C-alpha cells in the first residue's frame, strides 16, 4: 500500500507489577491505510485496548511502551513528549471509548464540549467554532441539532450520546480514528446505526480507523481487514472475508466457529476448551498451544511463528490451508 496512516512495528507494552513484568502487548505489527477500517478483535485481556491506548499515548502508569515503533503518517510518535502528543491527540488521532455516558462531562453542555475541542485545535473564532460544532452534530445524525447544542449529556439517549462522542472525536478532523468498543454499551438495534455511521465517516473523510471490539458480528459488518489478538500477541491478520471464511490460525478458526454471526450454516457452535492464559503464566512457545487441536512438539518450544505476507499472515507453525478442516 501507499504510505499507511498508521503503522505499528513490533510494538511492545510492559507493566511492572509485584508478580513480575507483564506484557499485555507483545511485538504487534500492522498497518492501516487511509479510508481503511482495521478491526482488532480478541477476548478481554488480549491486549487490544492496550494497543489502542498505546497508539494515542494514554497508557495508565506504570504501563509503558518498551519496544517497537508507532508511526503516524510516517512520523514516529511513540517517543513523543507529552506536549507533542497533546498536539496529535484530537487533531490527528481521534479516540472513542466504550461508555458514552461516562465519556461526557455531565456538567458541561455538549455545545461547550464541542466548541472547546474545536477552538483548541483549529484557529477559529467562537462563533465559527459553534457553527462547525453544529455541522459536526448534523453530520453524525443528531436531529434538530441546533436545539440540542445547549443540552446536557444526560438528556440524550445512549445511541445519541455515542454519536455526540464520535462528533467530538472527529471535530478537529483527524486522519486516524481509534474506536475502543464503541458499540458494546449500546442496544443491539442502535449498534448497527453506529457501525454504519463509522463506516460512512471513514469513507467520506478518507480516514483510517482502528475498530477494537470483541464482537465478531460488528467486525464482519464493518471492517475491511481484521487483526486477531491473543494473549498480547497478534494471532492472525488479513482481509475480513478471509478471516471469517477461511481463517488460518487455529484460534481464529475456533473463534469463528463459536460465534453465531460468523458461523452461519454450521450446525452447532463449537467451543474452544480451556481459557486464555493469564499474562503472569504464559506458556512457552506459542501462547495458544495448550488449547490447540493441531498442537505439535514444535509449538511447545519454538516461539514466534509467523507465516504469510505483510497484509495477511498467521502466527502459527501449522496454519490451516484453504479447504482444510481444522482438526
Amino acid at each position, binding site marked *: 500500500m501507499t504510505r499507511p496512516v498508521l503503522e505499528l512495528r513490533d510494538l511492545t507494552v510492559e507493566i511492572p507489577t509485584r508478580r513480575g513484568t507483564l506484557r499485555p502487548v507483545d511485538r504487534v505489527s500492522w498497518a492501516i491505510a487511509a479510508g481503511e477500517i482495521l478491526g482488532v478483535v480478541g477476548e478481554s485481556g488480549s491486549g487490544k485496548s492496550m494497543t489502542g491506548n498505546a497508539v*494515542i499515548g494514554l497508557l495508565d502508569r506504570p504501563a509503558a511502551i518498551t519496544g517497537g515503533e508507532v508511526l503516524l503518517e510516517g512520523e514516529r510518535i511513540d517517543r513523543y513528549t507529552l506536549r507533542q502528543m*497533546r498536539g*496529535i491527540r484530537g487533531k490527528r488521532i481521534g479516540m472513542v471509548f466504550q461508555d458514552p455516558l461516562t*465519556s461526557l462531562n455531565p*456538567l*458541561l453542555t455538549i455545545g461547550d464540549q464541542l466548541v*472547546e*475541542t474545536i477552538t483548541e485545535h483549529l484557529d477559529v473564532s467562537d462563533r465559527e467554532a459553534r457553527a462547525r460544532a453544529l455541522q459536526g452534530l448534523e453530520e453524525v445524525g443528531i436531529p434538530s441539532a441546533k436545539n440540542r447544542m445547549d443540552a446536557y449529556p444526560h438528556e440524550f439517549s445512549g445511541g445519541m450520546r455515542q454519536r455526540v462522542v464520535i462528533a467530538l*472525536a472527529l471535530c*478537529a478532523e483527524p486522519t486516524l480514528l481509534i474506536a475502543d468498543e464503541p458499540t458494546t454499551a449500546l442496544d443491539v438495534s442502535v449498534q448497527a446505526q453506529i457501525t454504519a455511521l463509522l463506516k460512512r465517516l471513514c469513507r467520506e473523510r478518507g480516514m483510517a480507523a482502528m475498530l477494537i471490539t470483541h464482537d465478531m458480528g460488528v467486525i464482519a459488518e464493518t471492517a475491511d481487514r481484521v487483526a486477531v489478538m491473543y494473549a498480547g500477541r497478534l494471532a492472525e491478520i488479513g482481509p475480513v472475508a478471509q478471516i471469517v471464511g477461511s481463517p488460518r490460525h487455529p484460534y481464529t478458526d475456533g473463534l469463528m466457529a463459536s460465534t453465531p454471526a460468523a458461523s452461519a450454516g454450521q450446525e452447532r457452535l463449537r467451543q474452544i476448551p480451556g481459557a486464555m492464559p493469564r499474562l503472569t503464566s504464559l506458556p512457552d512457545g506459542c501462547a495458544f498451544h495448550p488449547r490447540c487441536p493441531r498442537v505439535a512438539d514444535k509449538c511447545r518450544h519454538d516461539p514466534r511463528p509467523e507465516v504469510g505476507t505483510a497484509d495477511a499472515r498467521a502466527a502459527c507453525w501449522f496454519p490451516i490451508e484453504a479447504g482444510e478442516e481444522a482438526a
Partner: protein
Amino acid sequence: MLAYILRRVFQSIIVLLVVGLVAFSMFRFVGDPIEQLLGQERTQADVERLREALGLNDAFVIQYLNFLGRALQGDFGISYRQSRPVADIIAERLPATLELALISGMLAVGLGIALGVFTAIRRDGVAANIIMSTSLIGVSLPTFLIGILLIYLFGVQLRWLPTFGRGDVVDLGWWTTGLLTESGLKSLILPSITLGLYQMTLIMRLVRSEMLEVLRMDYIRFARARGLRARAVNFRHALKNTMVPVITVTGLQLGSIIAFAIITETVFQWPGVGLLFINAVQFVDIPVMAAYLMLISVMFVLINLVVDLLYVWVDPRLRIDGRAA
C-alpha cells in the same frame, strides 16, 4: 424541584422541633430550676408561686409548646448563673464568635481548596508529599493543642501577638467588631488560625481525594484524548466536577466551625458564645445550654438547607427531578 425544596424545608422544621424537644427536656428534667432561682431560703408558698409562674404545673405538651413559643420570640429565660435574660447574654457575645468563625472559614476554604487542587494535580511532586504529610499532623493535632502551641510561640516567646481576649472593639450598636482596630485584628490572627487549621486540613484532603477520583473518570480521559490542554482538563473539567461533592461537605464543615469555636474560645479566652456554653456546662446553667443548643441548631439546619439547594443548582443532573443522583 419545588417539591424537593418544600420537602427539605419540612425536614428542617422537624429537626428543629426535635432539638427543641431535647432542649426543653433538659429544662424539665435536669436540675431543679426552683432551687437554682430561689436558693436555700425559700418558703413553700414561694415555691408554689414560682411553679405557677414558670408553668411547671401544666401538662408536658403545653409546657413544650409554651417553651417553643417563647423561644420563637427570643425569650430563653433567665440564666441561672448570671441572673440575666439569656437572650441578652447571647446577643452580646454572638458577634465575637461570628467574626471569628467568618475569618476562620474564609481561611479554611480558601487555602483548603487551593492546596487540595495543588496536591491533586502535582500528585507525585515533593511539595505535594510534604504538604500531605504535614496535613496528617494537622488532623491529628487537637485544636486546643494548636492554640496553646501558637500562643506559646507567638505570644510568649516571640511576643508578636496577644495571647488572650479580643483586643479593642468598636461598638456599632447591635454589633461589636474587632475588625476595625489594630489590636482587634491582631487578636484575631491566632484564634482564626487555630480554629481554621483543622477545617482547612479536612477540606484540603477532601478536595484532593475528590479531585484524584475525578481525574480517573472516563470523561477526563476523553478530554485528554481530544488533546485539551492540562489547564483546561484540570480546571474546566476536573475542578468543576470536584466542587459538587466538595460544596456539600465544606458547607457542613463551616457549620461545625461555630461549634468548634467552643474550644478555641476557651484556649484564647475569646468572649464568644462558645466560652459561654462551656461555662454553662460546668455550672449546669440549663437555660444558657438550651438556648445555645437551639441557636446552633437553627444555624446548622439553615446551613444544611442552603448547601442542599446549592448542590442542586450546581449539578444539572439533579434539576430535572430534584432527587439526589
